[in-house]
């Protein structure tokens, strides 16, 4: 079992006022989320964060980083399972309107200038899909509450680019063992992160950070990856992020934070993104040296090379002097991953992985119900033909990729609720893995097999005594002789039990 989590930063606009301040819109959206949640929510506990700690063992001095990285208070307490006391602080330290911790164990908040849904900790890729879809539904509920309160609307987009140079992320988190050497982990994982986009990419109209050249590429994020390994997430973005903030017992665990992935509205894409990476991580933890044969000579350039290669034929140079396409690298990874199947979900991942690679190699359009970039390419391809123009020779020329109608459709594709992807799904053209009932339940209920259960359940049943909650803490505010807040430490993400919280939940 491996703990996973998925975070989504949504694009946000006021369609009636394109110049509206996105930070204000996002704050009001979180207020909407709090209004939707009613009593059953709490604020965020910033107590345990340490965003300046690098996985490579050094801690950045505070003066040497961009201010956005400074999200922490200066408390870190690794007393697993214990309860400690904390002095009360001024309420100015966490303006409530910027955060909502929800009964499904998730956090809905403002990150930079975007609303973000950080899903609860889950134990497998299928659950990640369920709670990711729940996040989209919650964002729509928040938008409805916003419209009621403000009398205007916001539109939300599950994409990663604005076509003007800005990118915002969809981050995956994987718990991995601390005793794994981080450089080895990064080296052995890179080939997978570079090539998995052939089935996880969401598709993008425009090439280059600002879409300088017309065209279509596989990945939203590819053009924004500038280095192999690094701490930053908002500039010089790395393929493997090295922030060392485990949100768990530091002695035993790392939290691998992956920022290269696209936001995906297709269940299969989300499932495969997390499912395949889980299996590759299992191979890395087992010190499987077969992975070394897949070391890429130029991984950063290869991210873009693969993203632009719609025929899936381009050769990537490997360290051993051979050349392999992204499909071939993925086939090799699949063969290695077969040895690490540890449960039913892993087996489903392997079967789908094999099937997708086979069909992508034969005819990409056979995967249009599962692979988002293929579905987008198919729809926009038909649109280009529809808006084509007749040439002097009596032939028809497709509309250009930079035709505003095509570019607009790429944006509208990802709009929550009414976007083209949502409409395709409603028309039965997108394969769903999570049922509507499962998604509906996950809007209010947390996963039962991780600490998210404790967070969600205490917020649902005793919001009156919860002061704040974080990934590894629940802060209680009760009448007590000591007059201080009680910080309940949940340093094992895989434990859905804590003596004090269990007792409070029993009533």
């Amino acid at each position, binding site marked *: 079992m491996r703990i996973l989590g998925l975070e989504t930063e949504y694009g946000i606009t006021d369609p009636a006022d394109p110049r509206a301040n996105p930070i204000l819109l996002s704050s009001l959206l979180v207020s909407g989320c709090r209004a939707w949640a009613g009593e059953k929510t709490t604020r965020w506990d910033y107590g345990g964060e340490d965003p300046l700690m690098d996985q490579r063992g050094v801690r950045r001095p505070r003066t040497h980083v961009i201010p956005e990285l400074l999200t922490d208070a200066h408390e870190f307490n690794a007393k697993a399972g214990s309860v400690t006391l904390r002095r009360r602080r001024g309420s100015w330290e966490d303006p409530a309107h910027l955060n909502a911790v929800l009964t499904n164990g998730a956090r809905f908040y403002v990150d930079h200038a975007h609303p973000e849904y950080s899903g609860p900790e889950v134990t497998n890729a299928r659950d990640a899909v369920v709670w990711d879809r729940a996040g989209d539904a919650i964002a729509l509920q928040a938008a409805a509450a916003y419209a009621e309160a403000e009398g205007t609307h916001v539109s939300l987009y599950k994409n990663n680019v604005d076509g003007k140079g800005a990118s915002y992320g969809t981050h995956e988190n994987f718990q991995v063992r601390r005793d794994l050497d981080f450089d080895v982990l990064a080296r052995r994982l890179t080939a997978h992160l570079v090539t998995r986009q052939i089935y996880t990419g969401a598709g993008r109209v425009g090439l280059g950070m600002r879409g300088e050249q017309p065209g279509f590429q596989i990945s939203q994020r590819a053009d924004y990856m500038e280095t192999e390994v690094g701490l930053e997430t908002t500039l010089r973005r790395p393929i493997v992020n090295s922030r060392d903030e485990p949100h768990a017992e530091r002695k035993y665990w790392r939290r691998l934070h992956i920022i290269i992935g696209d936001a995906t509205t297709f269940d299969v894409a989300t499932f495969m993104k997390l499912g395949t990476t889980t299996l590759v991580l299992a191979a890395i933890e087992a010190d499987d040296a077969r992975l070394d044969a897949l070391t890429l000579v130029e991984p950063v350039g290869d991210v873009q090379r693969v993203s632009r290669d719609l025929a899936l034929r381009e050769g990537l140079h490997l360290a051993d002097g051979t050349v392999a396409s992204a499909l071939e690298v993925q086939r090799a990874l699949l063969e290695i991953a077969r040895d690490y199947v540890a449960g039913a979900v892993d087996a489903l991942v392997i079967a789908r992985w094999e099937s997708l690679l086979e069909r992508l190699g034969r005819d990409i359009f*056979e995967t249009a119900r599962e692979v988002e970039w293929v579905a987008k390419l198919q729809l926009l391809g*038909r649109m280009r033909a529809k808006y084509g123009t007749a040439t002097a020779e009596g032939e028809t020329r497709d509309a250009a990729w930079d035709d*505003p109608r095509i570019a607009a459709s790429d944006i*509208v594709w990802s709009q929550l609720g009414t976007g083209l992807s949502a409409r395709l799904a409603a028309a039965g053209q997108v394969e769903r893995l999570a049922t509507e009932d499962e998604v509906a339940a996950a809007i209010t209920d947390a996963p039962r097999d991780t600490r998210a259960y404790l967070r969600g359940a205490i917020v649902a049943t005793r919001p009156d005594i919860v002061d704040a909650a974080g990934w590894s803490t629940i802060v209680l505010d009760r009448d007590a002789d000591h007059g201080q807040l009680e910080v309940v430490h949940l340093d094992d993400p895989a434990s859905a039990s804590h003596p004090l919280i269990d007792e409070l939940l029993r009533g």
Partner: protein
Amino acid sequence: MPQQSVNQDSFDDDVPDDAPAPAAAAATTDALDALLDEIDGNLQVNAEQFVRSFVQKGGQ
């Protein structure tokens, strides 16, 4: 072999179901065309301004 038995074979469990049947492909084409017709009016009026005004701040 009579035509009927060929048709029956295609419903066997061990036939790979990953290649879309012609009927499914036609349904997809219809669905895509219906969707394109649905959004056509909006795109003709608004597309350029919409694209220009979709501006986001960088995030993580």
